[in-house]
Structure formats: structure tokens, C-alpha cells
């Protein structure tokens, strides 16, 4: 029950919320979300309480451990949940990010329609994500993975503009396509292996691998397939389109957390099912590394050239998520540690950045980068938080990004993959430079708009010193602080991750 | 020339005639000539049959002066067949001639193609 609750509770709560609003709608009552415009309603409180409870439940589950069998679809296909340390890391991260973004979203959604629908699906998605993290076997993971795609779809096309719907469909089709590509691998593994439950270090021995001629192909399919969610080349096309059109809180979790679901799936497959020993040194590893590095570079490059703020952040996510994938592709403990720590750091950073973008949109309505000149006069505090997060993402010590990148680079050099292993740090470095190139100008233009900037618009619209509301600001500040704190004291986290790494390798 | 060819002259002639008649019946457009062709064809067969039944030096199989030995007569069966055949062919010819007359009255032509053309035109007028 303890394992089940963090999955079931938000799904049930979200469904109930949706049902309730549905009933309200059909009875032609004023819908509860839009009532009391600008004020916090009971619904909002319940919503935040539900999220908080979820965080508590996840932490409780992580602390308590255990496993549960959910369903038996057929005699051979059973669904189950099991708590382990890797899962717990992701689950706790997810729920915390969800809570913080949730708080932000209450304020943000005051400016959007259909808030209650957003809340409902937002709640459901967190349950599903925790389901992915705690999945005991590959099929369960796949089940939740598909559910995640479907339930997060309403978040993407929330605004119901033609553009949003198109983006939503693109998101949907890429995700589903990726999932089906991965499904081939699942079929194959099920056929070869029979039992798909996760064990640290993988289930495959060298003999078993030798007896399965298509094993590598299957794994590669899964890497590309699940890599879709993490925006890995070649199936990255949806991400820069879908993330920005969503409401900012949704963008934040999409970029910050949901991309990590793809990562989680790959961690499970490579390190808990197939086993890194089987894959190390094969063409799959090389191909994966190449893809990851390409994505890293390409994402940064595109972000650098992008003018729409949220889109720029989305491209950044493409790049950063592939840092993680690159770390995983190294298949050594150092790289693994780097990858998992980067998961945590990037999650915090990117959520923070998107929430900031959301706050900017709410307060000023600006969406393009070149509109953001003089932002420091409007929201200096928030911009400070943005600066911290940016620096962390670039990887400047003592901010958190530095730690993970350090591990990634050393891991790459130690991976024994020859030229690719050396190319890794170079690409990471170039990408870091590009990251600086696309993030810092906003800060610089914000605080130092230059001589020719008269700030007329800011003055006229009464935006001077208009920080976002507290509900928005708090999560941003908290996350920015986290990037700094985690960067200063990465010890416990690194130790925790290293323990996982030791278990799987 | 093969010697047997000279021995079976009647058969050969009848075959040639049959071919002539058959071709006329099949290919000629004029109805009267068709009928003539049919008659030639039939006649050829009668010739053939008669030749088959004929035995050198024997008499007609008709009792003229009392009962005689069968060896005095030619084979009577083909003759009977020829007679029957003639009856049949006469009636067929009669029927065809009647038909031809009807067609001629109607379409003023003996040419089958011409008749078909005028028939088509007539039908189109009706529609």
C-alpha cells in the first residue's frame, strides 16, 4: 500500500477533480477554476494540498521501500511496483519539482482558461511519473510510459490554439512512435528473456546475449525509442515545438521532469535489465554516444539562434537531456554518477528557468528574447534567480551544473571508447560556451540595457519593480537556491548516486 | 499421283463438292447462294453415300423379277439413306427459301449483311 499510494493518490485525485468540473460544466454552473478571478480559491488549496501530500507519500515510500503486484494482464504479463534507490531518486525529484511548479501554476493559471482541467491532468501525470520510477519491470514501465504520454498531452495543448493543438499532436505522435519503437525491443527481450523485472546490473549473461542475435538491435531500438522523450536526435523534433506552447508550469515540468522519464526508462533498460556489461564496447554504445553528442551540440546551437524565450529554453533542454544520455552511454560508474546528478541538477535548473519565463509572461507578456531588455528594472529578484540558474546550467562552480559536468567529462575520458571518449569533453565544453551564449545575454540585457534603452514601456505600463506574485516567486527562489546549495554541497547526492552506480556495475 | 487416288474418284469429287458447298453456305452473303451451297453440300454427301453403296456389276436393289439372291443387288442401305437425306434436305431447303422470301419481303434484299443493316436501322427508328 505504501508503494501503491504515491501512484494511485494523484491519479485518483486528478480524476476526481476532472469529474467534478465535468459535472459542474454540464450543470451550467460557473466552473470553479475561473471563479474568483485572481484570488486563490478552495480548489487551488486542495490542489496544492494534494501535491504536498503526494510529495510526502513519495518520500515515505522511498524511505520504506517494498514492492507490490498490481495486475496480471495475462499469465506471463504482470504489472508490479517496487521501490529501489534509483527509482526513489527520480520519484522524490519528480514530486518535489511537481510541488514547486504546482505552487507556481496556481498563480500562473489565473491568467489562463480551464485551470481545473490543467490541475486535473497535472495531478494525474505526477502519479504516472512516479509509476514509471517505481515500476518493477519493463512492461509496467511501458504501461506508465504510455499513460504519461497520453495524460501529459492535455498539458501541452492546453491553450487550444491551432498552433498548440498541432504541437500537441506532434508531441503525441513522436512519443507514441518512439514508444512503439521501444516496444519492439520489449517484445524481443520478453521473447528472449521471459522475465522482464529489473535487477541491478541486468539479467543478461554473455551466453544469453550470444543466443539472441537481435539483442543489440533491440536495445538500440529502445534507446532511440525512449530517447524520444528525452529529445534525443533523431526523434527530437517535437520537443522545441511542444514545450514552449504549453503553459509555463507545464513547460517547466515537461522540460525539467518528463524528459527524465525517458532517461529513467533507459537507465532501467541498460543498467537494470540488459546490463552494461553486455553493451559495453558494442556498436550500440558508440552509436548512442554519437547520437547523444550530436544532440548536445545541435541543441545548444539551435538554442543560440532562437529568439523566442521559451523555445530557446526548450532547445537548451534538448541539449542538456542529452548530457544525461551521454553520461549513461559511457557505461562506467563515473559517467553514470554524472548522468544521474545531472538529472537532478538539470531538473531544478530548467524548472527554475521555465518558471521564470512564465513569470515574465504573466507579468509583462513578453515572449521574445529581444523584448527582455531592461527586465532587471521590472523584476530584479527574479532575474537574479535566473542568473543563478543560468550559471549553474553553464557549469560554473560553485553552482551545481559544474559537479555533474565534471563527472561526465572524467567519465568520458575514462570510458575507454577511444576517440569518442575524448570527443565528449570537447563537445561538452563547446556546448557550455554556447549555453553561456544563449543564457547570459538575457541577464546582461536585463540588468544593463545600455545607453539607448529608455524604459519607456516599463514605465508606461507601471511595471517598474513589479516582482511576480509570491506564489510564483517562491518556487523560483527555492529552485535557484537549490542549484547553489547542491553545487556547494553535492556530497550526499553524489554518494547516493555512486552507491547506485556501484550496484549496477 | 498415288494410285489409290484414281480408284476413289467419287469420294474425292464428293469431298470437293462438300467443301464448295460448305464454304458457300458459310461465307456467301447472298441467301439464295447460301441455300444453293447447302444443297451442293448435301448432294456431295449423297454422292459419297451412293458411291459407297455401289458394287460393281450389280443391280438396283428393287425386286423386279421375283426373289433373287442378295448378291445380285448393290447395298440397299446407303440408297435408303440417300433417299431419306433427300427428303430432309428438301424440307430444309423449303424452310430456308420460305424464310428468305419473308426476309426479302421485309427488307428488299437478299444480302444478309444488308438485311442486318436495314434491321438495325429499323430498330433505331422504333426507338
Amino acid at each position, binding site marked *: 500500500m505504501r508503494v501503491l499510494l504515491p501512484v494511485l493518490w494523484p491519479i485518483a485525485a486528478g480524476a476526481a477533480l476532472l469529474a467534478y468540473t465535468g459535472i459542474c460544466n454540464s450543470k451550467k454552473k460557473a466552473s470553479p477554476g475561473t471563479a474568483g478571478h485572481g484570488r486563490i480559491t478552495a480548489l487551488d488549496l486542495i490542489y496544492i494540498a494534494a501535491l504536498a501530500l503526494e510529495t510526502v507519500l513519495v518520500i515515505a515510500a522511498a524511505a520504506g521501500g517494498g514492492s507490490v503486484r498490481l495486475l496480471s494482464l495475462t499469465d506471463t504479463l504482470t504489472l508490479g511496483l517496487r521501490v529501489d534507490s534509483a527509482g526513489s531518486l527520480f520519484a522524490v525529484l519528480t514530486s518535489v519539482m511537481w510541488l514547486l511548479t504546482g505552487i507556481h501554476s496556481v498563480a500562473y493559471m489565473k491568467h489562463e482558461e480551464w485551470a481545473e482541467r490543467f490541475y486535473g491532468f497535472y495531478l494525474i501525470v505526477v502519479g504516472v511519473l512516479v509509476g514509471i520510477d517505481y515500476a518493477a519491470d519493463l512492461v509496467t514501465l511501458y504501461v506508465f510510459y504510455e499513460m504519461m504520454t497520453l495524460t501529459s498531452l492535455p498539458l501541452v495543448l492546453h491553450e487550444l490554439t491551432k498552433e498548440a493543438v498541432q504541437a500537441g499532436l506532434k508531441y503525441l505522435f513522436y512519443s507514441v512512435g518512439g514508444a512503439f519503437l521501444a516496444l519492439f525491443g520489449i517484445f524481443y527481450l520478453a521473447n528472449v528473456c521471459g522475465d522482464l523485472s529489473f535487477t541491478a546490473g541486468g539479467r543478461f549473461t554473455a551466453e544469453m546475449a550470444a543466443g539472441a542475435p537481435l539483442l543489440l538491435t533491440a536495445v538500440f531500438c529502445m534507446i532511440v525509442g525512449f530517447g524520444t522523450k528525452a529529445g534525443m536526435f533523431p526523434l527530437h523534433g517535437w520537443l522545441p515545438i511542444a514545450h514552449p506552447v504549453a503553459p509555463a508550469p507545464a513547460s517547466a515540468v515537461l522540460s525539467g521532469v518528463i524528459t527524465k522519464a525517458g532517461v529513467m526508462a533507459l537507465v532501467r533498460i541498460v543498467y537494470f535489465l540488459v546490463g552494461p556489461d553486455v553493451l559495453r564496447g558494442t556498436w550500440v554504445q558508440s552509436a548512442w554516444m554519437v547520437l547523444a553528442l550530436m544532440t548536445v551540440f545541435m541543441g545548444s546551437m539551435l538554442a543560440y539562434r532562437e529568439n523566442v524565450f521559451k523555445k530557446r529554453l526548450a532547445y537548451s533542454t534538448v541539449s542538456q537531456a542529452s548530457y544525461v544520455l551521454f553520461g549513461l552511454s559511457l557505461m562506467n560508474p563515473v559517467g553514470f554518477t554524472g548522468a544521474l546528478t545531472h538529472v537532478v541538477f538539470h531538473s531544478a535548473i530548467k524548472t527554475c528557468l521555465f518558471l521564470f519565463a512564465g513569470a515574465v509572461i504573466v507579468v509583462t507578456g513578453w515572449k521574445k528574447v529581444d523584448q527582455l531588455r531592461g527586465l532587471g528594472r521590472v523584476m530584479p529578484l527574479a532575474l537574479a534567480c535566473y542568473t543563478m540558474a543560468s550559471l549553474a546550467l553553464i557549469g560554473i562552480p560553485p553552482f551545481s551544473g559544474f559537479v555533474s559536468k565534471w563527472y561526465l567529462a572524467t567519465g568520458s575520458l575514462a570510458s575507454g571508447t577511444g576517440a569518442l571518449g575524448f570527443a565528449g569533453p570537447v563537445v561538452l565544453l563547446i556546448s557550455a560556451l554556447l549555453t553561456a551564449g544563449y543564457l547570459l545575454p538575457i541577464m546582461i540585457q536585463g540588468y544593463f540595457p545600455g545607453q539607448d534603452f529608455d524604459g519607456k514601456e516599463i514605465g508606461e505600463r507601471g511595471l517598474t519593480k513589479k516582482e511576480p506574485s509570491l506564489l510564483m516567486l517562491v518556487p523560483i527562489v527555492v529552485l535557484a537556491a537549490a542549484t547553489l546549495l547542491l553545487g556547494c554541497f553535492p556530497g550526499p547526492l553524489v554518494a547516493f548516486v555512486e552507491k547506485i552506480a556501484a550496484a549496477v556495475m | 499421283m498415288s494410285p489409290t487416288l484414281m480408284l476413289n474418284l467419287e469420294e474425292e469429287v464428293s469431298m470437293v463438292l*462438300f467443301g464448295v*458447298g*460448305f464454304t458457300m*453456305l*458459310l461465307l456467301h452473303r447472298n*441467301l439464295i447462294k*447460301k441455300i444453293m451451297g*447447302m444443297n451442293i*453440300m*448435301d448432294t*456431295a*454427301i449423297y454422292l*459419297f*453415300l451412293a458411291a*459407297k453403296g455401289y458394287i460393281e456389276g450389280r443391280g438396283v436393289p428393287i425386286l423386279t423379277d421375283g426373289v433373287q439372291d442378295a448378291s445380285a443387288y448393290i447395298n440397299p*442401305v*446407303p440408297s435408303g*439413306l440417300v433417299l*431419306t*437425306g433427300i427428303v*430432309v434436305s428438301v*424440307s*430444309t431447303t423449303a*424452310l*430456308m427459301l420460305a*424464310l*428468305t422470301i*419473308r*426476309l426479302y419481303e*421485309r*427488307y428488299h434484299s437478299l444480302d*444478309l449483311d444488308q*438485311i*442486318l443493316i436495314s*434491321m438495325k436501322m*429499323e*430498330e433505331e427508328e422504333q426507338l
Partner: protein
Amino acid sequence: MSFVQNFPFFSIIIAMFSGIVSSVLSGKKARAVSIAAITVTTVLSAFVLAFCLRTGQSYTYMMGHFPAPWGNEIRAGVLEGLTALLFGVVMFLSVVGGLRYTEEDVEPSKQNLFYIMIDLMLSSLLALIYTNDLFTAYVFVEINTIAGCGLIMMSQTGRSLTAAIRYMVMSSLGSGLFLIGLSLLYDVSGQLLMSPAKEAVARIVVDGSYQIPLLVIVAVVSVGLAIKSGLFPFHYWIPDTYGYATPTASAVLSGLVSKGYIFLLIKFFYRVIGTENAAHSHIINALFFFGVAGMMFGSLRAIMQTDTRKMIAYSSVAQIGYIYMGIGLGTQAGMIAAIFHIFSHGATKALLFISSVGLYKVSGDRTDFLALRGSAYRNRLAGAGFLVGALSMVGFPMLAGFISKLLFATSAFASPHKMLITLIALAVSTVLNAIYFLRLMIGLYRPTKSGSFVEPAPAERTGGGEEADRKGRGAKQAEKGAGPGSGSAAAAANPWTMRIAIVCFIILNLILGLFSQPIVSAITDGLAMFG
């Protein structure tokens, strides 16, 4: 000697005499005589069949007690009895079903002539079935031709006259070939009675002499009878002939006459040449080839037609092809299939001709597809009859056509070289049949262009039709007399005689389809008796 053994002779003679008597009778009386004659001969045939089945063997009946080779013989066995019986039934139903139309289409003064022709036709068919003498067969072939020609020209339109002359020309060609074949046979064997001729042929084959003349004989007789029965490529007289005669005549000609010749050919193969010899000659392959080609060609041409009568007529070409394909297989099984198809096609095609007339009558006497739209609602029974006929043609299980198809297909396995061709030809032909029959059938069950189920055709639209349309849909309504125009048309189109005929034909089809086992075993027995 049992009295029953005289029945074949009686039935021939009765039919012929009724024809002669009819020449001095009025139309109505001639009709009565004719129907009576058909009934009696059918009953007699049934007795013959029963007798042969009981004794389990065939018998030869000497005419006037002259022994072979002078005398003339009749031979009756199970197969002869069965064929005579079924031919009689089909003939009876065709005549009865077409009574009203015969009255309409034939001049009153010529009514008795029509029935004379029917009588002669019956008599010649029976003679063809029963005779054991080839020359007699020739004579009756000619009588048959003349009677057929008379039937065709009865309706006295320009079309039917030209059709008659074409028929006549082709038949004469066929008869001529048949006759020359006989003469040659007589030349080499000295026999015209079938049984002694067979012995003579057997001797010749053993001798190894006269091989080429024998081949020529088989070829000439086959071609002659093939022309007369309308095998592709000698079929071109068929569409006009069947298409423009009166309904009864069409049904009889298409259902029976061509089958009579085929029966004669089968008899010739079995009783004179011997199946072995026939199977070894290449003639049989030619028949097979042209049979298959005819199946395809006939169906393709039928698809191109827009006129119902011509379509049905071209379908006959295809069906004749089936029969020749069965013969061409050169096996016992193939022959059984061919004979069964003679029956099933006779029953089915006659049904189609009779019921299609019912449909024309409610469509303003027009026969094109467009005019016939919705006619099955205007005349339900005729529609049902046509439906059953069409389904049988397509080979719908439980109907006669299916069993034919099944027999053809199973028989194919006995001749390995032709197996695949036969099977595929059957399948393709089924598809083609489906295309033209079902296209028409769908049309029959569609409302007319104006959306009505009741009124005949756009051109013949009457006030009554509209009224009926408004009051309600369906022919039922119309039959109740709601719409004076179309209602009475439907009633007039369905005289009770025709209803009986259609229902009986449907039942006949079902019998052939559902209880084929006894019939097939009878055919098998009959063929065995052929020796």
C-alpha cells in the same frame, strides 16, 4: 418383355402425332394437345426411368423386329430415362410458364403452328435421346433444326427472322458435317447402329487400320454437333436466336435443344467411338480448350451487354463452354459433371428466361438494364425467380449450379494435366458470372431513378404509379391494387401459369442442388450402361 419397354417409342410417337394432329386444330386445342403430350411423355419417361432403375440395366428395342444392321433401334437406360424425364419437365414448365406470352407474341392464326413446333421439338429431342441408330439421329437432328427454326421465327419480327436464318445456316453446316461424319463412319465400319458400330470401331482400333479416317470422323462429328450446340467459336448465332424468340422458345432452345445435341455427342463418344478412343484423340483436348475459351468469352461478352435477353443468351454460350469443358476432361467424372450440368443449366436457364419476361412485362416491355430497375419490387415472384436463377448460375451452394461446379472441380483432379486450368477457369468464370448476373440483380432491387419502387420506368411513368408511390412503397402495396397502373401491370405480368412455372423451376433448382446424390448416381449408372 415388359410393357414399359415400349414407352420410349410411345413417347416419341405420341409427341409426333400430336404435332400432326395439331395442324388441323385451332390454337387453343393445339395448346391443350401439346401440353397433354408433354405431360404424357414426361410420365412415360418417368416409368422408363423407374423400370431401368429397378432392373438395373438398359435394353434395346427393335423397331418392327428387324434385327441389326437393317432395323432401327431404340435404346433406353437410366441415363436416357432421366434425361427424357428432366427434359420433359423443363419443357412442360417452359411451355406453361410462357403460355400468356405465347398468346401475346404469336399471331392467333399461327398459334397452332407454334404448338406443332413444340411437339416436333419434343419428339425429336426424345428421339435424339433414345435412338440407337446414327442415321435416325441425323434425321431427328434435322427435324429438331426445323422445329427450332420455326419456334424462333414465330414472333415474326425482323430480328427473329434474321435470327432464324442465321440459326438455319449454322445448323445446316452442323448437320452437313454430322452427316458426312456418319457417311465416313459407315464407310469404315459398315454400321450405323451404335452397338455394332462400336464393335467395328474397336476392331479397327485393334487393327491399327483406318486411324486417320477415324480421327476425321470424330473430328467432323464433334465439330458438327459443336456448331449446332453453339460452342465457342461457333456461337455467334446464339445471342440473336435466344434473345428474340418468344419466352417459351428461348427457354426451350437454350435449355434443351443445344443440350440434346450435346447428349448426342456424349452418346456418340460412348456408344460408338468408345471413351478410351475418344479420350486418346486430340479432339477431346480441342473440345476442352474451346470449352474453356467459351466460358471466358461468353461471360466477357455477357458483361458487355446492356440488354437482359442478350446477356442471358451470352451466358448460355459460357454455360455450353462448361459442358464441353467437362466432356473435354476425357474422364468418367468429367462426363458425369457435364451431364449434370446439362440438367442444371437446362433448369436454371429456362427459369431465367421465364422469370425475366415477368420483369419485362412490368417495365413496359423493355429489356435494357435501366428500364428494369426496381422491377423486382413490381413483380416479386419473377424477381425471386431471377434471383434464384442468377445465384444458381453463380454457383451458390444449395442450388443446382453449385453441384455442377463442384462436380467439375472434383472431376478435374482425375486428369492431372488439365486440373489447374479447370480449377482456375471455374473460379474466374464464377467471378465473371457474378459480375454480370449480380449487377443486373442489384439493378432489379434498386428503386428507379426517380426513387420509386413501384412505377415501371421513367418513360412509362403513369399517374397510377405516382399514386402508389405516395401511398406507400413496395410491390405488395401495388399488388393490392393501390395503384391502378402498376398494380394491374404486375398482376397481368404474372398469370397463374407463370407463377406455377417459376415456383416449380425454383423447386427444381433446389432439388438439383440439395438432393443431387441420387441424380448423380443415376448418371453414373447410366454411363456405365452406355458401356
